[in-house]
């Protein structure tokens, strides 16, 4: 007599979905602390703000400057010069760049649901420092 009707599909996977959906405000402590620092001084202390625009501007500026003259841009330049169809090359390159940044951000979001906040911040910080060292290496060798 199998009286147990409960399906085994009620796994606690809903929790991780909620975290992804609520990706707008996963960090309350960041918004509180950086608002204070923004009031005190509007310079390097508020490089990563809490709102959309501070994050947008700091991300945009650093990545734009880092990518200018990078090997991807050289590839794009050569292809558009050779092909006589710069618009097509630009559309292809642009779509590829949107895809890689979307993959990157989604991967970061996925990691933030798996790894603790402190560990992720430390790893992200180390990664950014490594990128800095790589850029300095580029400057030295060029």
């Amino acid at each position, binding site marked *: 007599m199998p009286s147990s009707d409960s399906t085994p599909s009620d796994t606690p996977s809903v929790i991780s979905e909620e975290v992804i959906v609520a990706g707008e405000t996963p960090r309350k402590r*960041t918004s509180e602390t950086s608002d204070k620092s923004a009031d005190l001084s509007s310079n390097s202390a508020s490089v990563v703000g809490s709102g959309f625009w501070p994050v947008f501007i700091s991300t945009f500026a650093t990545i734009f400057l880092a*990518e200018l003259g990078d090997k991807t841009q050289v590839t794009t330049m050569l292809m558009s010069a050779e092909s006589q169809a710069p618009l097509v090359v630009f559309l292809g390159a642009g779509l590829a760049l949107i895809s890689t940044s979307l993959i990157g951000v989604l*991967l970061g979001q996925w990691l933030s649901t798996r790894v603790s906040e402190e560990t992720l911040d430390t790893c992200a*910080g180390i990664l950014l420092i490594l990128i800095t060292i790589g850029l300095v290496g580029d400057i030295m060798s060029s």
Partner: protein
Amino acid sequence: MDLKLFLVSFAAVFLSELGDKSQLAAIALGGSSPSPKAVFFGTASALILASFISVVLGGSSSFFLPEKIVKGIAAIGFGLLGLRLLWPESSENI
């Protein structure tokens, strides 16, 4: 539209950007930022503007932008972002 050229430029740029520093930065910032949407739009628009400039110039961006200085500013920016993630308390006291 030349579909073959479109696919070739997509594949070339996609493969060369996969695992490159800007994607690593997108992973780092997207995971630790309070606004991942802003990180995505910032990254994507910066990359698109950089490649737009490359396409328009078609070869010579170095004659008006000294590459070392531009990369140096970018290095300082990434360094500040990284230090702030590693030591959030100390950067608030400055």
